[in-house]
């Protein structure tokens, strides 16, 4: 996946947490091996060429493809697991894998878990008594600065995912044209309970552009969002204010 995953784990039995961390990291390497499109011999590359069936792949592939299909339906096709007509579930794998790793850590008995997968974050539990997890949202137009701070206060699980052009250039493709998304947005941050969906919705909303995205994001239950346009306007869903820390 060409990205860095960071774990911040609080509480729990140190031995159990350490064992879970090894499992979670092994799990990420396994996911990378199965899903990478950078290697021609990964299962997903071979599936895309028709050399393997879904049934012959790791069961995780079927799980991810089902989630991808659901994301495509919910986003009316703005999120897609195909690129240039070819199977490419990369857009859903990173968020899903980070959420999966976070849940593995929570199962080990940790009281607070934060997993950051390349700028997309899944939070579970709390980092300490009387203190919620706090996530800075990088300001796409001011390097090193924060556009907002999201607090997970009152939520046992919360995810923050950001899609944008700032760090990796125009890497979001409009599934309808197959070209780089033409959008007035430079970044979309989605806040939702599960990172799998937050990541998908941020990608889809980015491709939609601010006007359509804001209305669509408002229609999704338990989803809040912060949109920053190339014109330096900040737009939020109605309930985001309650999450700003």
């Amino acid at each position, binding site marked *: 996946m060409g990205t860095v995953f960071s774990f911040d784990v609080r509480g729990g039995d140190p031995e159990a947490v350490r064992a879970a961390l090894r499992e979670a990291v092994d799990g990420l390497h396994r996911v990378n091996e199965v899903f990478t499109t950078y290697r021609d011999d990964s299962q997903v590359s071979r599936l895309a060429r028709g050399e393997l069936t879904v049934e012959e792949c790791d069961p995780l592939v079927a799980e991810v493809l089902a989630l991808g299909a659901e994301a495509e339906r919910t986003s009316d096709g703005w999120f897609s697991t195909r690129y240039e007509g070819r199977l490419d579930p990369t857009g859903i794998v990173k968020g899903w894998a980070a959420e999966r790793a976070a849940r593995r850590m929570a199962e080990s008995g940790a009281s607070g878990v934060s997993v950051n997968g390349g700028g997309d974050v899944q939070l579970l539990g709390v980092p300490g008594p009387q203190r919620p997890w706090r*996530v800075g949202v990088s300001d796409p137009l001011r390097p090193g600065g924060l556009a907002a701070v999201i607090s997970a206060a009152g939520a046992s699980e919360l995810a923050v995912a950001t899609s944008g052009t700032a*760090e990796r250039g125009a890497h979001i493709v409009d599934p309808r044209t197959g070209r780089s998304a033409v959008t007035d947005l430079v970044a979309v941050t989605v806040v939702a309970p599960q990172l799998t969906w937050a990541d998908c919705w941020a990608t889809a909303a980015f491709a939609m552009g601010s006007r359509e995205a804001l209305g669509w994001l408002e229609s999704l239950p338990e989803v809040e969002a912060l949109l920053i346009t190339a014109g330096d306007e900040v737009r939020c869903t109605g309930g985001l204010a309650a999450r700003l820390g």
Partner: protein
Amino acid sequence: MHALKKNRPLRRIVLASAATVSGMVMLLSLKPHSTPAAAVAVPAPTSSSSSSGGSSGSGGSTGSGGSTGSTTGTKTVTGDTVQTRWGPVQVRITLKNGKLTEVTAIAYPTDNPRDQEINSYALPRLRGEALETQSADIDTVSGATYTSDGYRQSLQSALDSAGG
């Protein structure tokens, strides 16, 4: 601090220089799409805070962070040397009572004048980012960070060695 910063004029000025930074980040980046990903060895975690490179394109992370000093007072930690296609990148951090107070790049590409020009501009910016982010009382950051992958990986390994 306002939850939403709306510093328009500053942002516009920085936008121009941001384009320059993006160019620099491309130069230091580890993700050429054409080359196969190399697996990165993950050291056995030694504390409950750890990081893992899923894969790092043409680069690999080598060495391990070493730390000196105790958990209170001043502590200096050296991050992994991260190989990028333009040369090795390595950072050293200083913590005072658990707070990040200094980030220094102790290895970075210097093979040609262009490298030197880029690094003289980029490294102070990356350092400023690491320090500013932690001053906001936040646990982590979502979204683009303008940090080159090599720098970020070395910084992360140093923070991990420091025990989070």
